[in-house]
């Protein structure tokens, strides 16, 4: 006899609430005790593995408790903690960059909530802009090791840009796009076509920098190319979107996946499309022209804006007492340009979020039928989301191509689309700052973090004589898959959630629990 499930289902969701309730029911002092003991145990265990890791646990634990002190003594205690760190820096060689970081963090924790919205990003921006000057002074992180260099920083910024772009599509409008890599590829190839020898049968120069005027091929100023690449990507988004955005969510995902597979294949086979060499096939297009502002503008700004990025720079910044001796390199200029591009992307994203069309996207995401009934043209509005996301994907691709001075079809494959999606999910769908943080972290992991983690694991773990030999970067995809799985199961609103999304995703938990052990029918259109 099949058992009819007239019982209250206990899903993992309910389990979480039960656990939370049990924890909160304990005596507060007992809770303090338990946490402290756990922290000490953790410290002890990790200290034996790696001293730096142990100290990291100490620092994090201290911050944990500082935040929970009553306001009156919090300021004093925090000040005392910073003072202690300074003393340690002088006496015990604690890296001063760590001390400064903690001090900045401490100050920021006292910023009132209302101001946080712009203070935090402003401070982060300042730290980022100055990064090339102190990058080599940065303390070594436990596990992850050395902080990324400026070149990796460019890579990270490019991917953050793409994540913010995808966030417009997935986070704002709720359209699952599994083919974002197609826009990345379109942008990259656009810059390749317009700044290289690829089309040598013609000769068109406009604003190019650092090349002779007689060079065959198309050579245009990077700034024009970036804007153009964005438009090309946006246009392809519109073309792809027109027949497909009417489809239901999961079908749309599959179709975008399809495009995300087709375009790279065309790139790979593109050296002989009906006899025409469009993409130079597997060998890719390289080199690309150097970017720059040209001599006129460079001289006008007294050399602040470099004429040619690849021939930059001669300026050195020396700040003796901070041990900063840094000659500004072309990598630095690429880095700062990438920051500017990212700022534009984030700015646009925020403006869109709080506008008429941003509200329309949320409405569509919540209830398409009702949205249409309120006068929102579904197809057009979705297409705008898709095109906007594509626009920034294209610019990111174009810029990265110029940075590496190359575009290969091997750079574009399905896993990248999922990788960027993972950034959006981890960071917090719909929340730009969350996505920035999530993207920065994952991009770093992909480029250096995983390799460093692997090295650390292999060096520091010995259990009864066995030393591991993990090739961690090899399993990058699996790790991102695991991140997606864990986040979707336990914190689908991401690390830094948008309040609204958190509510949406946990909607099911606050409904009356169903009597029957089955799925509540979704809101189908009427």
């Amino acid at each position, binding site marked *: 006899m099949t058992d009819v499930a007239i019982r209250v289902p206990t899903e993992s969701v309910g389990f979480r609430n039960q656990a939370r309730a049990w924890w909160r029911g304990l005596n507060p002092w007992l809770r303090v005790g338990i946490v402290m003991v756990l922290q000490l145990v953790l410290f002890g265990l990790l200290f034996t593995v790696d001293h730096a890791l142990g100290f990291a646990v100490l620092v994090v634990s201290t911050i944990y408790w500082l935040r929970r002190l009553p306001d009156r003594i919090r300021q004093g205690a925090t000040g005392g903690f910073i003072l202690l760190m300074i003393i340690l820096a002088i006496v015990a060689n604690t890296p001063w960059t760590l001390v400064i970081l903690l001090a900045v963090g401490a100050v920021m924790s006292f910023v009132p909530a209302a101001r946080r919205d712009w203070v935090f990003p402003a401070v982060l921006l300042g730290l980022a802009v100055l990064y090339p000057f102190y990058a080599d002074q940065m303390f070594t992180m436990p596990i992850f090791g050395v902080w990324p260099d400026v070149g990796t920083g460019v890579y990270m910024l490019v991917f953050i840009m793409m994540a913010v772009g995808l966030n417009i599509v997935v986070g704002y409008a709720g359209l699952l796009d599994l083919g974002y890599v197609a826009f990345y590829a379109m942008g990259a190839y656009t810059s390749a076509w317009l700044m290289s020898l690829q089309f040598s049968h013609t000769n068109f120069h406009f604003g190019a920098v650092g090349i002779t005027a007689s060079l065959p091929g198309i050579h245009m100023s990077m700034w024009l190319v970036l804007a153009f690449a964005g438009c090309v990507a946006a246009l392809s988004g519109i073309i792809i979107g027109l027949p497909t955005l009417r489809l239901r969510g999961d079908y749309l995902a599959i179709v975008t996946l399809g495009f995300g597979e087709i375009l790279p294949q065309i790139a790979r086979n593109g050296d002989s499309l009906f006899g025409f060499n469009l993409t130079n096939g597997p060998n890719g297009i390289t080199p690309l022209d150097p970017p720059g502002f040209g001599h006129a503008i460079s001289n006008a700004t007294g050399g602040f804006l470099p004429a040619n990025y690849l021939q930059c720079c001669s300026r050195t910044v020396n700040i003796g007492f901070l041990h900063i001796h840094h000659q500004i390199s072309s990598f630095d200029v690429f880095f700062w340009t990438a920051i500017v591009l990212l700022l534009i992307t984030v*700015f*646009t994203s925020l*403006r*869109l979020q709080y*506008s*008429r*069309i*941003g*509200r*329309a996207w*949320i*409405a569509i995401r*919540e*209830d398409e*039928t*009702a*949205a*249409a*009934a*309120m*006068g*929102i*043209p*579904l197809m057009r509005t979705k297409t*705008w989301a898709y095109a*906007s996301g594509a626009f920034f994907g294209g610019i990111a691709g174009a810029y990265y191509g110029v940075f590496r001075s190359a575009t290969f079809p091997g750079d574009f494959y399905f896993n990248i689309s999922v990788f960027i999606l993972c950034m959006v999910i981890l960071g917090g769908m719909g929340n730009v700052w969350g996505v920035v943080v999530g993207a920065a972290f994952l991009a770093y992991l992909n480029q250096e973090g995983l390799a460093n983690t692997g090295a650390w694991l292999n060096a520091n773990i010995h259990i009864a004589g066995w030393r591991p030999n993990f090739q961690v970067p090899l399993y990058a995809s699996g790790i991102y898959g695991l991140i997606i799985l864990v986040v979707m199961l336990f914190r689908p609103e991401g690390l830094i959630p948008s309040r*609204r999304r958190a*509510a*949406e995703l946990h*909607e099911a938990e606050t409904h009356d629990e169903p009597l029957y052990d089955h799925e509540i029918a979704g*809101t189908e*259109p*009427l």
Partner: protein
Amino acid sequence: MSTNGDYVLVAEQVRKEFGGLVAVNDVDFAVPRGKVISLIGPNGAGKTTFFNMLTGVYKPTSGTVTLLGEDVTGKPPHAITARGIGRTFQNIRLFQNMTALENVLVGMHARMHANLFNSVLRTPKVRREEKEVRERGRELLAFTGLSRKATEVARNLPYGDQRRLEVARALATEPQLLLLDEPTAGMNPQESAEFTAFVARLRDENKLTVLMIEHDMRVVMGVSDRVSVLDYGEKIAEGGPREVQQNERVIEAYLGKAAVEDMKKQGLS
């Protein structure tokens, strides 16, 4: 039937078939300006299907729908809303995780002009527009008695307030014709009475034309200028509330033949 400005909406021979099932069977229907029209009928009579054809959610199998003199048959919902119909839904379809004010702001989408580009640039025109729509949104919330709930998330509002918010949102589309689909479902008698008065105000003060699907006869009788009755997809009666109430076919549709016999016996026809 004339199709000029006298009538806000004219439906001619509108028919809807789902495969072999005829849900709406060649119905003629006209909504005169400035009146409250009620559409009643037993469950499954095709009322909501009919509504859906008027608002573009369904495309009629045949027939025409004319709104304010313009043929809107088969046009998509957002186009019909832009041309002057606002509606509420039988099962509340608010944007659950948006605040009350945001819900109303969405309703104003069709009346705003900000596009993607000037939104990013936040031109003075856009800024002014945002300010104006917010003011108008608050006005609408106040009009429907929700001014203190403007920042409340829709999901957390009590049921009655949710219904009112749906109306506020529909009004935000600045309609010439307001379609209400069972607006008093789930309301207690006092709330229904308040709502009846509210609909009367919409007609008398705001000069709105209202078409309602309703089951609560007190509401129907209380405010309707005209009642139309649908049964099995056909219009079986139309006229003043009293008239329709005593119409044999209507009674038969609701209560069955036996009831009609009873009534005749008791000399009530």
